[in-house]
């Protein structure tokens, strides 16, 4: 069976918006991070699919997605560390709780 290209893109778009929703809606900072991952993966899917189906003769997309994954890992690491730092002070990682700075 072959799946039309569009459906991949629809999938990725869905994934993207799920990620956005998660980022905006989830309480826990960790899960917010996870939804960021979703967004990144949505992008990755785009890259890979575009490369595989539209421009099969090159590798840019694949490479790019690899880099994205790598960088995402780094990003998450730093984010986690900061979140831990937040936890140290607030004793929770609720997104609502970090609004000392405002206006």
């Amino acid at each position, binding site marked *: 069976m072959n799946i039309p290209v569009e459906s991949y*893109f629809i999938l*990725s778009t869905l994934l*993207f918006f799920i*990620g956005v929703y998660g*980022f905006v809606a989830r309480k826990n*900072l960790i899960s*917010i*991070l996870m939804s*960021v991952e979703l*967004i*990144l993966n*949505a*992008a*990755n899917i*785009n*890259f890979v*699919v*575009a*490369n595989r189906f*539209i*421009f099969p003769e*090159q590798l*840019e*997309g694949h*490479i*790019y997605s690899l*880099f*994205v994954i790598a*960088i995402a890992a*780094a*990003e998450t690491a*730093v*984010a986690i*560390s*900061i*979140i831990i*730092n*937040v936890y*140290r*002070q*607030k004793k929770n990682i609720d997104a609502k709780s*970090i*609004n*000392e*700075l*405002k*206006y």
Partner: protein
Amino acid sequence: MNHEISLVVVMILVLLADLTIGDKNKKASQLLSIGLFLAHTILCFQWSNSFSPTEAFSGMYLTSEIHMFVKNMLNIGTVLVFLYAYYWNTHENKSHAGEFYFLTLSTLLGMYLMISSGNFLLFYIGLETASIPMATLVALNKKREESAEAAAKYILTAAFSSGVMIFGISMLYATCGTLYFDGISANFSDFNLSIMGLVFFIAGIGFKISLVPFHLWTADTYQGAPTSVTAYLSVISKGAAAFAFMCILMKAFSNYPEAWKEIMWWIIVVTITVGNLFAIRQKNLKRFLAFSSISQAGYIMLGVIAGSDQGMASLVFYTLIYMFTNLAAFGIISSIEDQTGKVSMDDYDGLYDTNPKLAVVMMLAMFSLGGIPPFAGFFSKFFIFMAAAEQGEYLLVFLALLNTIISLYYYLLVVKAMFIKKSDSPLPTIKIDNMSKVGLIICTICILALGFISPLYSFIAERSFGF
């Protein structure tokens, strides 16, 4: 390529210095790192004199004279930041001084790559290299709750925005089939998907330049971060991002300007206005400068919308002068904060009576930011407005100018606090350390002189021709 290489070398050396002598002799290691970076800066000037356009990673990395200039500019800015940070690093931030230098330099490296990238991949790498260490820098002072919060907000928004951006890039890739800027400019058309890609990309980079509506993290992060880091954020990273943004627009989307000119028009108007409106009510000076920097970013974008050589030249010139001006302001704020921990505008009442020098420098900075002649800010503003006007954007220029009235209002508020208002408990007379003193003197001289040194502008203009 020399810049990057030597920077990497410096980074490693700094790291080593911190590891080896860092624990025993903090001062020495710090001085060493500053010295090393100073050397790097000077070397860079050397190299940019004998320059040949280089290209590496099969065209992913390419550099021209204006890139050199901007990198040198960033170097100088970083040096100034280091000078300011020295006191803080030797007192409050003793334990993490080493990291400070290393991380700052790594963000700088990221910006280098970001500036001279010829391909979205390298650009993305550069961007992330610039922003991820930045988060740790913001979080650097672990004791303060604000710092952590600011860092959290920063990293989350950064991650989010970079996600959005690469999603956009993926769309561009899907439509244009390449990630090279020139390739994109060849294949770019008003195909909706690619326009969406463009918009997502603008959003991603707009986060770094803190354009409205992608700016909301700015104030909180600026306020929470250690002041030196705030200075670095507000000047270096913003400037680099703005320049990179213009480069990319020029390279990748130049043959289809209708797509982004309209967008930028609105973004600029909103950015300037919102920045000013929010700045009016601020009492905390760091936060105040955050919003002021937002509106300044709006002015910088005028160069982008001009989309011409002159636009590029005036953008660089503006960024340069903005750098010195803002660093002067931050220099005052940080040295006062380091010694008294006061950052509120009310604390500055009657500053002139106790610390005349500081007050005067701050006033110069404020006037320069407000674009009052004969200080440098006036010239940069005038030229960037001219660049926009050249493209017939008179209405935009007019709106921007009306906004300068508002901005002048809040800049004058600071002046008023320092000079006119009387305070029953004014700040004590402050003895600022020599490092910051040097930094401040440099900034002051530049504020007073740069406007009159016309060769500087022509120097930039020649290089920015066609870049």
